[in-house]
Each structure stands twice: as C-alpha cells, then as structure tokens.
C-alpha cells in the first residue's frame, strides 16, 4: 500500500517530516478512494432510477397510439361504406360506443371518437384517449371516397 511510500526513499530525512508526508499520502489516497467509490455508487443509482422511471411510462402511450391507428383504419372503412354526413355521424356514434367499451376493458381508458367537421373533400374526427396518467387528444382527417 501507499502508506509506506514515505519511508523507503533514497535520501534519509528527519523522522517527523517523513511521518507527516506518509500520513498526508494515506489520507489523500483514502479520500480519493472514497470519492471514486461514492461517484460510482451515485452514478449507478442515478442510471438505475432513470431506467425504472422511463420503463413504465410508454405503456399507456403505446396503447393510445395503438388505438389511434385502429380507430383511423376503422373510420376510413366507415367513411367508405357510408353515404352522407348524417348517416356517418350515426355510424360513428354506434362505433364509438363499442370501441369505448373495448378501450375501457383492455387499457382502462376512456376513449371518444366524434365527427366534428365535414368539407366537400374530407371529414374531420376528434379522438381522445384518457387514462389517469395520460390525456391524449388529436384530430383525424379522412378524405371522402
């Protein structure tokens, strides 16, 4: 170990001075060791909590994205199979009631789809997917066939 380093030098020195230097080296090395170990422990803990915190969050986000994709595909199909905005509104309401039950069952989420606008070339829908941890809202525009 380093604590003997002060005694084995080529040039003899007064006893007190060598002792003081040895002590200094000893204390310094212990301080450095503690600092390095402490830093390792702290960094390790920081990275661990970071990965734990981010591991769970995207699950509700992923569910929202999955439902958004499903709903968009279904709406596209509903638009293709429906004539006129009034009938589409009825069909979307009927669809919304059923898909909301599915979202409540599989993702404990409250899902809402609604026809909010129509233009000569497209329909606009609002989509919301709300869980206790996530409030996801977007609009979808689907071209008329």
């Amino acid at each position: 170990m380093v604590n003997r380093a002060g005694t084995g030098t080529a040039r003899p020195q007064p006893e007190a001075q060598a002792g003081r230097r040895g002590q200094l080296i000893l204390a310094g090395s212990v301080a450095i060791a503690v600092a390095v170990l402490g830093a390792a422990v702290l960094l390790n803990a920081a990275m661990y909590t970071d990965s734990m915190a981010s591991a769970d969050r995207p699950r509700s986000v992923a569910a929202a994205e999955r439902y958004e994709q499903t709903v968009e595909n279904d709406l596209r199909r509903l638009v293709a199979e429906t004539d006129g905005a009034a009938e589409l509104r009825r069909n979307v309401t009927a669809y919304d009631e059923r898909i909301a039950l599915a979202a409540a069952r599989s993702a404990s989420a409250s899902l809402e789809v609604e026809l909010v606008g129509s233009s000569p070339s497209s329909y606009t829908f609002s989509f919301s997917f709300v869980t206790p941890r996530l409030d996801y809202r977007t609009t979808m525009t689907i071209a008329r066939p």
Partner: protein
Amino acid sequence: MAALLVLAALLFSMQSLVVTPTTDGAVDGATRAELRGQAGDVLTVAADSGSLSRTVRYWNASTVERTFAGAVRPSVGYGEAAPPTPLGAMVEERFLRRGYRVNLVVAYLVATDPPQWETARVVYRGVPSEDAVVATHTVTLFDDDGLTGPDSANATMVEASRSGMIPIPDVAADSPVYNVAEARLVVW
C-alpha cells in the same frame, strides 16, 4: 474512517450484485418486459396486415363445429398448435418453438344491457403462471366481412350469425359495424 471505507465497499458490492426475483426458473423483469414487447408486436403486426381480423373470422360455415376452423374443441381451441393463419405462424415461431406457452382468446361484445363480454378461445393452454405477460389488441368486425375458414362458403358475418355458425353477434345492427372484439395474447 474505517467505518466509511467498509460502508463504501458494502454499497459498491451491493450495486454490482444481480438480484433475481426468484431462483426456481421464473422469468425476471427484463425478460418479461421483452416478452411483453414481442407479444404486443405480434398482435400489432397481425392487426396491421389484417391477419388478426382474419384469424378472428377463421370459422367454417358449419353449425356443428362450434369453434374455429380445424380447431380441436371450443374449450381449448387449437390446443397445442397455433391457428393456421399468418398470425398463428408468428405465434408459433416467436413463442411455441421457443418453449413458451400461449393463450390466445378473443373477447367479443354481446348485446345485453349493459353490454357484456364473452370469449372464444383460439388457443388455450390452461391457467397462466404468475409471471405471464399479456398483450391485447382491438379488432373491429364489419357486417360485410366474410368468414375466412377453408369451408366458409363466402358467408358474411351477418349471414353466419343469423344461421348460428358463429357465436359472435351483430351488436350494432343498424350500422356497418358488426362487433368490436379484443384479442388477448397471454405468454408464459
């Protein structure tokens, strides 16, 4: 000083210690997360390609089978095999061939008030163990979707339901929507 040194060494060694939840072969957290991701991916890919819907509609135009086309019986579905669809092939390759067990169950709405869910078992290998992972995907069935079994006789969902070939009912009779089903894949 010595106490500090011992404490630091102890903390450091505890950091590098791998803590496994169990020692009897149960799956640890990272593996479960990966498995859950894979199960979700399988369902998502199948849903995007339409194979999930086709698997849900994989019935024959028969009133006596009471289960999916070519399946063993309603209580186990295809049992130890996977359904003969692209989704089934993915389940087979990702899970069954690697020694995992799988339940694939379809839940569909029945038109009671309030609406309730009933299930049809595509693959059922029994009660999952505690470390099972679950993935779900919603699939909407439409009135003019047809059965996809090899002896489906091109029957649509409405026709099939009317003549008692499938247990899944039309829950939105005055709209193009037929039913909203949830596919649930359990892997352990």
